[in-house]
């Protein structure tokens, strides 16, 4: 909001003098209007609206007339659109006025460089399908608005319908061209819109030129002068056509990149027909980052500025250039899944694919076009198969690259990235670092220098939706204090004070408006003790309960993400929000799912009934995924999460309410939301393309100071990514290590953990990988340090100290037998841990003959776990999550006795998490805490640490053994996914997240399956799966992705113009001839039916469901016919093939 109300910008927009309010007055009134709308009692007065129309006229004046400076026009458009937007939110006198104002606002948003807001406004319009014969002006407004939102599917649909109408009108009126009629202007608008979208989709400059000509004719038609709305729309679209021509994906595709890259953007999902301003600025630059010659790139865009799409464009350009595949590194599994799914859908139009790298320890998949993995997996693959990584992948895209400074995981990324940079500095490989919160871009660009030239660095502050910043606190109404005399067991005087909610909204730098609730939001209770009034914590309303009230005010405008410091806090707040709401029938499916998975008594089930979820690491993965999906799709309005979600997943919401930003651990305050996380959280407020404004509210439990608004601004220093080698902890570890090293060179092999051990492991990894790459002549001690971010940030003295460590580590590497050092370097653990693994492997190998069924994952695990080996494996990282406490406040040193081996066997057997908890953790009486600990154990130990070490261990155990003699080679994957059959493992590895589902399917398949599980599954469809497996929407979506007939390349072939035949699951009485595809109102996912004469005659089978659904989403008109042998024949009704739609030569 402050951005939109910047005084200088308002002054520039308004110009001097004249009848409208001054810039100061306008600023004040806009702020008032914003707040009034927030309180849902807004209305925009006529003068403000008149100002908007004036500014719109200034902003949209034809540039060629040179009436105003370009910068003023942009500002004027931004302010005009903002006022229109507020007026539209407040409500318009008539639907027609709403449509006219929306169109004007869309134009101003587009020409004010706030493109996504033009889409957001469009989405607010009610359904409308006017006919030319009733009102051609309405047709122009409707189609014009769709074009400004670049809604290709709707434009083509509407043009199709209008084409039929136009044909009929020409016949009725007896003209060859509607230009001879009063429909002339509208007809030209509609045809021009078609031509414009055709150009943006297919790069047909001649069609753009024709669109311009049609709009010119539409603005000045011979017989439609009275159709002022059509003429107005045509006049604007004439200018917008120029802008869109320049912003088109095609406009900045370098000649070195094949056009297929552009097709991936315009035809992929979501279609990208034009670029947003920061994307455009980036691609207009020299060199163009799409060009393969750009080898290092640092991109810093705020959230919702189109960073992901640019990354997709760079990757598409790379893979179609035939220079190898791309590898994307993302911080979390769930984000990786999202990135992989989105890329896969985009690349499907090029018959390429994106895949997940699979669990740790498994070799890379057979070179998909794009592979997606976490930093830990990148590091693992570089350690174990560096030659293959560099051979197959030549573009590395590191998302959320600021994580390189993360305390826990930063070093893993820095180590891998540093090596990657070093090993490819003389090759054609490319590295792209992306971040929304990277302060020290110069350092990072210098780190990624090639031959002394820093990486190309690009930073933009742009974002589409406005953002309102507000602070929430409570205000005690001391004047209405109630004194309660001691009575009965209450022996102390009490004081009850009503608390009112206060929201301070920043309206411009240094200015804010304060709001107060009309009634109390809670009560403060104080007791008179020892001569002073003290707060009574139990009787006073907790702060979260009062925050919850603010949340519901925000919820009136759209989805709300609440961030709390702890899991428990998140649950309490969720309950407090839910307590204020009625049941939300939209959430019924989520409620049923949570009740099945977690038990009906689980607190999540209760709050979900009201449309509220809580999300933290103590919930099973699949439930987390369902909650994320719920808020993304809008079925869930409120989600209360811990900070893990902030960086873990990419979903924006309308409002973000930040509660506690840390918690007390004894006397220590543990912050949970640092500047970077807060920036990320703020970035979630306001969904580009869905709404034009987002709110971010910070809670305070103390007196308000205007300086508190400073919390919203993170400076560059706070956002700097600092190498872990330069931290205080690392320098202390370094000093301790130096001391050890002075005593003995064996310190290298005796340092178990901490930064020094990690760095030694890194040196060994670098040394080994260089050797495997044939670069053994490079000095590993130099490469391992000089290519780190640390090298850019450390002072000379500290550099020399780490160099010394590197030197000794490399020296020890050289002195170790090649076979041993190679194995140890590949573990990714400290060297002492590698030695322990070596010893354990020898033990198990000796016991191997005792095991009968070596392929059985349970038996194999039991063998490894026996004789205390499980405890030794877990001692490598000493995960706190492997220690369970009976209650929250139990001492850290006190853990309950537990047979982890049996627990893990139950995990492998597919026991539900709830059952495992009841069986093994009955001593933890608080149910929530029990599942919290169990989920953390699963996430950290079973899904990460244990598979990692087991992978190395099993590999070493099996060295030299034939396939039949080996111990279950995939044991680590079985553990990772918690499954015990090959069928379940196959499904889990293929991407079915639900452990419940894979076990259910494996159980059914064991009796029914004759071919491969995917083949067997693909004989069913969404409806039968829903029925037979009781599968939830996300489970079904996973199954559809897994069973997709990739080899059929349906999407790419149809888009390339082929007639593609797809089988039909027949239902009813189909006949050869034309059919229509329709999504049934079931699900999601909705089954896609073939319909003839209004009757369902069959369904698209599961293997083709996703492709057909994608084709429908892309919005290119399809022709569907049923062949004699009952195959669906699908091809595009190529919009480029059509001639003049409304003119004489139309077909």
């Amino acid at each position, binding site marked *: 909001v402050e951005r939109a109300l910047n005084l200088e910008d308002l002054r520039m927009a308004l*110009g001097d003098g004249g009848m409208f309010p001054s810039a100061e007055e306008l600023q004040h009134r806009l702020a008032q209007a914003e707040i009034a709308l927030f309180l849902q009692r807004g209305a925009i007065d006529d003068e403000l609206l008149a100002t908007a129309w*004036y500014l719109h*006229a200034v902003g949209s004046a*034809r540039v060629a007339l040179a009436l105003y400076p370009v910068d003023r026009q942009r500002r004027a458009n931004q302010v005009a659109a903002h006022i229109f937007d507020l007026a539209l939110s407040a409500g318009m006198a*008539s639907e027609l006025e709403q449509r006219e104002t929306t169109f004007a606002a869309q134009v101003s948003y587009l020409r004010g460089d706030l493109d996504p807001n033009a889409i957001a406004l469009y989405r607010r319009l009610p359904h409308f399908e006017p006919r030319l014969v009733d009102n051609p002006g309405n047709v122009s407004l409707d189609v014009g608005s769709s074009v400004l939102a670049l809604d290709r599917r709707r434009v083509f649909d509407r043009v199709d319908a209008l084409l039929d109408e136009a044909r009929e009108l020409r016949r009725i009126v007896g003209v060859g061209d509607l230009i001879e009629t009063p429909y002339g202007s509208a007809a030209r608008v509609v045809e021009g819109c078609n031509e414009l979208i055709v150009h943006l989709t297919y790069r047909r400059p001649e069609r753009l030129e024709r669109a311009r000509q049609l709009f010119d004719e539409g603005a000045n038609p011979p017989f439609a002068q009275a159709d002022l709305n059509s003429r107005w729309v045509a*006049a604007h679209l004439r200018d917008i056509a120029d802008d869109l021509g320049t912003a088109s994906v095609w406009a900045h595709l370098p000649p070195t990149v094949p056009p297929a890259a552009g097709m991936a953007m315009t035809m992929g999902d979501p279609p990208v027909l034009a670029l947003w301003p920061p994307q455009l600025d980036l691609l207009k630059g020299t060199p163009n980052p799409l060009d393969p010659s750009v080898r290092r790139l640092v991109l810093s865009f705020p959230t919702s500025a189109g960073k992901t799409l640019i990354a997709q464009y760079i990757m598409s350009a790379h893979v179609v250039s035939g220079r190898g595949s791309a590898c994307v590194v993302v911080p979390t599994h769930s984000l990786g899944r999202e990135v992989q799914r989105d890329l896969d859908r985009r690349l499907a139009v090029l018959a390429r694919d994106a895949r997940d790298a699979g669990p740790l320890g498994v070799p890379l998949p057979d070179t998909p076009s794009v592979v997606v993995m976490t930093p830990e997996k990148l590091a693992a693959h570089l350690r174990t198969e560096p030659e293959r990584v560099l051979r197959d992948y030549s573009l590395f895209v590191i998302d959320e690259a600021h994580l390189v400074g993360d305390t826990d995981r930063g070093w893993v990324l820095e180590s891998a990235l540093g090596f990657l940079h070093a090993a490819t500095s003389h090759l054609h490989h490319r590295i792209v670092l992306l971040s929304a919160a990277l302060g020290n871009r110069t350092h990072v660009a210098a780190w990624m220098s090639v031959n002394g030239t820093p990486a190309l660095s690009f930073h933009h502050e742009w974002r589409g939706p406005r953002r309102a910043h507000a602070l929430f606190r409570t205000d005690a109404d001391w004047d209405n204090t109630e004194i309660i005399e001691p009575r009965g067991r209450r022996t102390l005087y009490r004081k009850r004070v009503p608390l009112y909610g206060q929201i301070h909204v920043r309206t411009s730098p240094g200015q804010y408006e304060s709001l107060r609730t009309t009634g109390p939001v809670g009560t403060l209770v104080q007791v008179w003790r020892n001569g002073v009034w003290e707060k009574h914590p139990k009787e006073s309303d907790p702060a979260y309960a009062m925050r919850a009230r603010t949340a519901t005010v925000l919820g009136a405008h759209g989805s709300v993400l609440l961030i709390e410091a702890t899991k428990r806090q998140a649950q309490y707040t969720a309950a407090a929000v839910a307590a204020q709401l009625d049941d939300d029938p939209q959430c019924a499916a989520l409620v049923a799912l949570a009740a099945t998975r977690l038990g009906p008594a689980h607190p999540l089930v209760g709050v979900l009934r009201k449309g509220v979820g809580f999300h933290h690491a103590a919930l099973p993965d699949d439930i987390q995924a369902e909650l994320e999906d719920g808020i993304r799709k809008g079925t869930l309005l409120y989600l209360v999460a811990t900070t893990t979600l902030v960086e873990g997943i990419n979903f924006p919401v309308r409002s973000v309410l930040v509660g506690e930003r840390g918690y007390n651990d004894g006397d220590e305050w543990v912050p949970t939301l640092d500047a970077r996380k807060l920036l990320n959280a703020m970035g979630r407020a306001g969904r580009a393309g869905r709404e034009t404004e987002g709110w971010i509210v910070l809670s305070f439990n103390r007196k308000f100071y205007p300086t508190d608004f400073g919390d919203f601004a993170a400076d560059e220093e706070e956002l700097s990514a600092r190498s872990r080698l330069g931290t205080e902890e690392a320098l202390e570890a370094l000093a301790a290590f130096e001391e050890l090293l002075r005593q003995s060179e064996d310190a290298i092999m005796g340092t178990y953990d901490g930064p020094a051990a990690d760095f030694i492991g890194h040196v060994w990894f670098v040394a080994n990988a260089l050797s495997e790459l044939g670069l053994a002549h490079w000095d590993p001690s130099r490469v391992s340090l000089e290519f780190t971010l640390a090298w850019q940030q450390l002072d000379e003295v500290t550099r020399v100290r780490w160099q010394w460590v590197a030197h000794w580590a490399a020296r020890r590497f050289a002195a170790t037998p090649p076979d041993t050092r190679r194995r140890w370097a590949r573990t990714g653990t400290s060297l002492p841990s590698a030695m322990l693994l070596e010893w354990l492997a020898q033990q198990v190998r000796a016991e191997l003959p005792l095991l009968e069924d070596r392929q059985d994952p349970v038996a194999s695990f039991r063998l490894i776990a026996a004789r205390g080996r499980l405890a030794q494996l877990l001692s490598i990282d000493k995960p706190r999550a492997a220690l369970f406490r009976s209650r929250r406040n139990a001492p850290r040193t006190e853990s309950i006795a537990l047979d982890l081996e049996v627990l893990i066997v139950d995990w492998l057997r597919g026991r539900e998490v709830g059952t495992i908890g009841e069986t093994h953790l009955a001593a933890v009486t608080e149910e929530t805490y029990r599942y919290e600990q169990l989920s953390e154990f699963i996430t950290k130990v079973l899904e990460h640490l244990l598979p990692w070490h087991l992978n190395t261990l099993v590999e070493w155990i099996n060295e030299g053994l034939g396939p039949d003699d080996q111990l279950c080679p995939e044991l680590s994957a079985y553990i990772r996914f918690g499954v015990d059959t090959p069928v379940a493992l196959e499904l889990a590895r293929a991407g079915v997240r639900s452990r419940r589902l894979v076990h259910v399917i494996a159980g059914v398949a064991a009796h029914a399956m004759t071919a491969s599980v995917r083949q067997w599954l693909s004989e069913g469809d969404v409806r039968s799966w829903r029925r037979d497996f009781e599968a939830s929407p996300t489970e079904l979506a996973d199954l559809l992705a897994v069973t997709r007939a990739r080899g059929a390349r349906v999407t790419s072939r149809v888009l390339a113009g082929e007639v593609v035949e797809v089988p039909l699951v027949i239902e009813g009485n189909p006949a050869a001839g034309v059919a229509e595809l329709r999504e049934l109102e079931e699900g999601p996912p909705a089954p896609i039916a073939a319909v003839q004469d209004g009757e369902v005659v069959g369904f698209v089978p599961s293997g083709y469901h996703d492709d057909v659904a994608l084709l429908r989403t892309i919005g290119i008109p399809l022709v569907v016919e049923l062949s004699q042998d009952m195959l669906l024949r699908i091809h595009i009704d190529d919009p480029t093939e059509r001639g003049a739609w409304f003119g004489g030569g139309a077909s």
Partner: protein
Amino acid sequence: VTIDDVGSPGHDVTTLVRSAAQPLSSLTVVEVHAAATHHWAEVRLPAANRAAAAYTVAVHIAWERCSGAPHYFDAWAARREGGRPHEADFLECIEGFLGSECVGTRDAPAPDEHIEGFVAEHIWHLLTLENALAFGIPIRVDGPDWSATDSGGDGLAVYRTGGALIFRLWESKAHTGDNPVRDVVNGACRQVTSRALRYLARFSKVGQTDTDPEVRHFYGRMPEMWKHAARGAGGGVSVSTASGEVTDCFGYYPSYWDFAHGDQRQGLVVTIVDYAEFAQAVREELWKGL
């Protein structure tokens, strides 16, 4: 004028019908008043010319609504002169323009207030084109109307005076109630104040596509000229009324807008006895062609 059934529409009918419509200014008595603060014209329709005037206004509406498209206007004119009924599908087309939400059809007539306002707008349009205000022949008149039932901002007249282009933005109203005409004028002024930029912004954009560079530029500057009450900008209010009490109806006119010259505030009062009935007579004429 008596015209035979000529069958299918043709330009000869068009010419005949249009030439049969006499200039409205010639059917009315026009008196122009020029004060220092505003100029206004008082127009009265003698009873004897009532039918002819209704016919003229109807022909003008038909012509304007069809934007002169020959297939439409000719068909309307031929039917009006007793020609064959329209084919059902063509009737639907022509009703889209001539039986629109402000007019309706015989079977579904629009509310009375709609036709009254609609006729008032076209009376202003016709008299402006005919230079009834003696302000000059406009080089271009846009409107009426953005939308038939949209309120206000009915027309924009552009003139060339002394070598420069100027514009006047008009608001037309029908007055059929018992309240003083002055109230309607004042309401219209307030409406222009609040809505002027909405209309000018849109007129301006359309005009910027004109083939004449001078006109393009002029249209581009209109909103700015209005904002600064520039010499070339001006407003006007037109009222069609049955009331004879119009002498002081522009009494408060000078208090609206910041214009410095009398000709920047223009007024038009058209007095027609039983105006509501007159509007319906116009509608009846329109329906004859459907």
